[in-house]
């Protein structure tokens, strides 16, 4: 029993990270029909800058805040220079290459500047474990899925009740019609990338005390987060969060009852099977294309 609960709690923590990354993909895709494949590196950027800030003797909360803001700025710049020029025609896929390229460059630059070692980011959330029905977990780990759920509900509220949220939906639905209605499409797309990157960098700062900060921390998380977004249906915020949490829990049970080596094999097999059965993801809606 304790073991089962341990796997669920550990799985929720890991799954929460996937969900947060996947939410970023969801936001970008919803507005631009393109994503930043370097989104995992946005996480890394937020966390690395927070540690660099702490090294420069900036107080911890301010260092974290600076890291998060820098992440948002990175998102805006990336959209302007690596995505927008390559999405002019509807079928262009140049943005895939450019965002991956930017990701590789950022990671190399971070390795050069930050060095090869993982570094800790201090947090009261990992001082000591709390025990729930005999299973142990750090408070910081519990905060990750909670934060993912908060972001999910926040997004829903924003989309329903704010002008910018509705404009985002309009742009997602049909860029040209939205432009004719007087919406500044470019500004909305830029805003959604800023929001996604802000959340990405915040997620980086949030998970850093648990998984440690290194230049390579974002690569695998980015890939898994994207996989989760596809499984959940990238157009559905609750879909990506639920599938992120479930994916994390499933990984822990595979590790626990089969083996660690089987984790990626089973995880990615499940992804392929889900896509065969549900081509738009578990919770995704089929998009009607008007020709």
């Amino acid at each position: 029993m304790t073991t089962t609960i341990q796997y669920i709690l550990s799985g929720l923590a890991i799954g929460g990270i996937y969900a947060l990354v996947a939410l970023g993909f969801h936001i970008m895709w919803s507005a631009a029909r393109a994503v930043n494949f370097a989104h995992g590196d946005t996480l890394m950027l937020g966390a690395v800058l927070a540690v660099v800030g702490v090294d420069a003797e900036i107080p911890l909360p301010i260092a974290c805040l600076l890291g998060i803001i820098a992440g948002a700025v990175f998102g805006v710049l990336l959209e302007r220079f690596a995505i927008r020029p390559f999405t002019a025609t509807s079928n262009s896929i140049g943005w895939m290459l450019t965002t991956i390229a930017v990701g590789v460059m950022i990671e190399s630059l971070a390795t050069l500047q930050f060095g090869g070692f993982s570094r800790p980011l201090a947090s009261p959330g990992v001082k000591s474990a709390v025990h729930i029905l005999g299973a142990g977990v750090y408070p910081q780990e519990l905060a990750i899925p909670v934060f993912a759920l908060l972001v999910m509900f926040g997004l829903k509220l924003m989309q329903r009740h704010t002008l910018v949220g509705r404009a985002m939906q309009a742009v997602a639905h049909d860029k040209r019609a939205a432009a004719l209605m007087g919406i500044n499409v470019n500004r909305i797309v830029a805003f959604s990338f800023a929001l996604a990157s802000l959340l990405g960098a915040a997620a980086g700062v949030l998970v850093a005390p648990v998984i440690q900060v290194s230049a390579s921390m974002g690569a695998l998380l980015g890939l898994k987060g994207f996989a989760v977004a596809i499984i959940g249906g990238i157009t559905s915020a609750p879909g990506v969060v639920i599938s992120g949490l479930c994916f994390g829990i499933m990984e822990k049970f595979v590790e626990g009852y089969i083996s660690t080596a089987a984790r990626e094999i089973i995880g990615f097999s499940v992804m392929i099977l889900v896509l065969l059965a549900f081509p738009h993801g578990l919770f995704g809606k089929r998009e009607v294309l008007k020709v």
Partner: protein
Amino acid sequence: MFLQTMVRSSVAVAAVLGFFSTAAHAEQEPCIGNSAATTGPAAFGGQSIKMGAEIAIDEINAKGGVLGKPLRFVQYDDAGAPPRGVDNTRRVALSDKCVAILGGYHSTVAVAQAEPVNEIGIPYVGVLAANTKAIENGKTPNFMFRVSAKDKWVARFLVEQALKSSKTGKIAFLYENTGWGNGALPDVKDAMSKVGKELVAAETFNWADQDMTPQIIRARDAGADLVLLWALDREGNQILRSMDKVGWKPPIIGAWGIAGNLGELAGPLANGVEVIQTYTFMGSMDPKKQAFWDKLKAKYGIKDPSEIKMGSGVANAYDAVYIIAKAIEKAGSYDWAKVREALYTVNYDGLVASYEPAFDAKDPERQDAILPKYYKLTVWTDGKLLPLEQTSYGKSN
């Protein structure tokens, strides 16, 4: 016609290549090469080799060099990639014409280098990578040597230490799913079976895994009362944290992957974790170590011994350069084959060990110079990795 031309030109190319390779073999120069990671996550490995080798070469040159000429050191980056290591080996041997080449940090690179090293016939002296098969590769004559730890012996040494500390003799082995970790598994199993025991659990994990509670729970439930660990600092930290979460705190003895910054990452959780080394600058220094440390400080502007992340690499490289220099003097020539022969006759009292002789031509296991009796246990104590005997952990044993 086409075929004829092809054949003719291939013959011509072969003749030219043959000419160049004999030319390349003809004259070696007083230089020692090195292929190591000087960029990427293990750049500290390449840095430590450079420091040790350069200080030794400075000392040797101050006394007139070898065979009347000053020694040079050339280092190329392989970033831990085997193909680049192979490329660098050829460059050091055929372009720079160095007398010998030092090895780097990554075992995968060392294993890949064995082939070109033996094909070209240049003496290779490994100074960090500990993979058993890289040096014990079954080739005769074998040009692969090592002045560093060897996983096979490390496994025996650590199993011995583990059985001393374990009350029940039930030992779990946690290892990373890489060439280094998987290569150590048979070594550890062998070492256990030599004393008539078996591991109660052997659990693996991947780089960058964030949580190891399933593996920890399995090892705990198998009844282990001590953990042998083959991990790097980041994963070592995640293991300590997973143990903290499930409330299990067995003694841990690890190979030297957790000798970097585990203390910084895991904080007090790292206290008491023991790590094997061949050398450390931490703790109190004897006069010989102090003199070496003063030179390092002066040349590289280092302020505190804890800034050196791989002290073993510095000292191993220093000793290796001296052994090579003495072999050149004994051979009376920079010739690869003669220097290789002479390596078996060098006696030298080094920083890490007393080499008497450095290598033994009769024993294929003795292409390794540092015997297990020179391995040292260090222990993480409040963020510092100190020699075991200088801490309260050493005294309680």
